[in-house]
């Protein structure tokens, strides 16, 4: 069962969905850049981007009424966007074996 988005929440739905992806990319970018250059300052930016991503996810969950079983999805998104860049980084280092 779904509860459709209310008319007033259209804009916030599109905006927050787009922001999740954009902040997700920014987080991944800063994370990798920080690792590559060994600069902890960039990691602070990465964390900030992830925080913004989490905020956007919360907004999207509210606007699209992700209640009940849909909450699992919210949790998976939060964990997925956090962990996937770390995993890809590990794979980059691991597969390039030097």
């Amino acid at each position: 069962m779904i509860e459709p988005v209310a008319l007033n929440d259209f804009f916030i739905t599109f905006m927050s969905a787009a922001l999740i992806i954009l902040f997700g990319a920014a987080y991944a970018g800063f994370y990798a850049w920080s690792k590559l250059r060994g600069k902890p300052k960039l990691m602070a930016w990465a964390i900030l981007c992830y925080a913004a991503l989490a905020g956007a996810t919360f907004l999207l969950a509210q606007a699209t009424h992700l209640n009940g079983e849909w909450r699992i999805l919210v949790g998976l998104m939060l964990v997925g966007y956090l962990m996937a860049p770390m995993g890809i980084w590990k794979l980059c280092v691991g597969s390039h074996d030097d």
Partner: protein
Amino acid sequence: MSAFISNLPGKVTSLFAFTENPHLNGGQKLASKYFTVAMVLFLAQLLFGLLAAIQFIWPGFLFGWLDFSVNRMIHTNAMVVWLLYGFIGSVYWFLEEESGTEIAGLKFGVIGFYVLTIAVTLVVLVYLLIQTGPGKDASIWFINEGREYIEAPRWADIGIVVVMLIFFYNVAATFAKGRWSGVSGVLTLDLVALAGLYTAGMFYLTNITADQYWWWWVIHLWVEATWEVLVGCIMAWSLMHLLGARRKIVQTWLYIEVALMFGSGILGLGHHYFWIGTPDYWFSIGGFFSALEPIPLVAMVVHSVYDAGVHKFKATNHPAMAWIIAHTFGNFIGAGVWGFMQTLPQINLYTHGTQWSASHGHIAFFGAYATINIAFFYLAVQKWRGNVWMSGDLSDNGWKWKWSIALLNLGVLGMTVALLIAGYEQAFIERAMQGSTWNAYFAAQSHPWFREAMVWRTLFGLVTIGGLGLLIWDLLTIGKDEKRPALVLTDRE
């Protein structure tokens, strides 16, 4: 007349006589034929898209002669076919180098090319001149199947499958004769899936729910699964040549990509099964996989940053490299941002079947597929000229390729934003406020936002066509007077 007909095959083949180029191997000569037709169809895609765009502004334009339905059908069909021509050509291009031997049945491959091209020409002529038929099986067999993207009549479907089998035979038999690799293994299996899926669109059903269920198998599992992997193979081979990347690393990442693409893409099919009469458990499956589909896309940013740090973008072919970067961005924006904005059923209820989908379609197809084909065309033309220099400091500062990539990207992005505004307005007024009746539909179509968006879309369409004109000019001239040999790269790791 009979003399004309008996001379026809000679005339047709003489059109492609220019592909006899001493710098190319057999597969590459055949690939050049495919690339040539691909560019012609790319141009057709844009021109018929322009006609359809103009009809949104002046509905009387060509009314009764070339109606919107015909223009739109040729617009989308030309796109599907030119992308496929580009993919097939790219595979033929690297087949001999990758397998280390000559193509097993090059003669069949050449015949297949002519059969396919003649079939495509006939289908388009029937679309243009006959257009529609009576409500009988004969119409579906010989005129128009009337199912979006795969309108080609059934006789042509069978022809396409035969040509795909020839192509598949050439790929599998050549690798079997020469040597297998990770890239060729993935490629061969992917082609089996790609051809097999097409048959899911080759039968008639009155039950429209089942009809659309299978229709999405073809459309989604091509575009969001098997095409992605096919492009992954082409990309893997290109990166080894363009950046001198090591095979073992490239192949590891190809497997990672296959796992991520198929893992999220196959059941991502669920987001097309929300509203066609299928059970509502597809809400959960579609919503779940759609929310997770962008994660690999986003995580791959890490890989791009890593590669940029390691390789510093030193490439043997700058235009091709620039188009691959355009691919990365386009795929991310088109599939990632534009896809996710409207994919959850809670909002898709209002955006499904509006200009939202058109907006998403324009940026996603261009970003994910057109870009990669164009990148490959540049790799091909470099070899064509005798493997000449194509890195920085080109003779005329490379203004043509730089302007064409700028105009094409600007044009497509502009159309996408215009359609997004139209789609937003349509979802809001027609769907949410007025409940999707015909009156609601027309109210939304006449709203100033919508009308202006259609004008902007057409203007940006013209920019896109300008970009394509420059691209064609550049592909015909780049490297012509170049004497320096291509940059040689070896992986320094």
